[in-house]
């Protein structure tokens, strides 16, 4: 590598940034033109849980038994102790331990 800041790389980053900034601002901007009826309100209220499930479930299923088991362990810990920190550490530790023991996925 001869340069620290190559111009073609910077152009790629600029385009990726533009797309991401548009995503971050666009939803907020659009909702300024939407009349928040009870129906729209129900849709907005359902969004957080829906995003969580849509983002995590295929990754979990695709990740195999170790990932599914680690996520279930994190949820179990959350039900017992409402502590996000312990839940994340549990998920990571279960996956790391299972892989160290030779389980795939």
């Amino acid at each position, binding site marked *: *590598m001869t340069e620290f800041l190559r111009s073609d790389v910077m*152009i790629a980053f600029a385009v990726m*940034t533009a797309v991401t900034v548009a995503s971050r601002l666009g939803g907020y901007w659009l909702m*300024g033109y939407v009349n928040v009826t009870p129906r729209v309100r129900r849709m907005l209220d*359902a969004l957080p849980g*829906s*995003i*969580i499930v849509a983002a995590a479930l295929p990754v979990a299923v695709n990740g195999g038994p170790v990932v599914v088991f680690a996520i279930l362990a994190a949820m179990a810990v959350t039900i017992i102790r409402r502590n996000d*920190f312990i839940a994340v550490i549990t*998920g990571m530790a279960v996956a790391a331990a299972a892989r160290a023991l030779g389980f795939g996925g």
Partner: protein
Amino acid sequence: MHATHIPKARAYWSTAAIVPGIIAIGPMLPGTLAFGMAFGALCAQKNLSLVEVEVMMATVYGGLSQFVAVQSWPEVLTPGAIATLALLTLTVNIRFFLMSATLRPWFGTLPAWQAYPSMLLVTDGGWLAAMRYRDHGGADASFYLGGGIVLYFTWLFSAIPGFLLAEQLTDPRKYGVDLVMPAFYAAMLVPAWKGSRRAIPWVVSGIVALVVHWLVPGWWFIIAGALSGAVSAGLMDEPEPQRPADVPA
């Protein structure tokens, strides 16, 4: 995340919520650091310079999209290759569109010059923590901004040790780093559970996401599932008014 019928206070700024906001994203910090280190190690393998990596951390600021993009980083950046990277980034990050939409009812009463820059800090963890705070009646925008700024700088610096220690971090999965976001998501889903009726959109979202994940390459499954879940909630009848016992403290 579903307390619908409680009137919520207008947004305001105070210093009182900065520390609680930082504490709320605290569980994300070790995972963010680990994820950023793994990303830095990946970038070193792809022959990006540390300065370039830091520019990307500071500007794109979307961990999963950066990971996906650098994993498929082309040898030569032709205009076509850059367009492909942009589309890839869009499919991963379009969920931020939905997240910032859900922040409108809260931040909408603030002046635009305060609200729009705040939206630049939307991340999975920061947004989730802020939504839970709002759900419990919180209105102080500093809660979201305080946590968001700490997450930003943690992410910004996290790649440096990873880049320098690239040799030791070639397999982040060994340390369970890929579980950081799923485990945090799972932990957020538990307190959001408010009975099976409210979970119907989640089921719709999950089924659609799985089907799209199988049928369509890329990351479209997130937006397809999330939108389906929201639309199904819109099609459902108005729920029964909440009993007082259901109202969060």
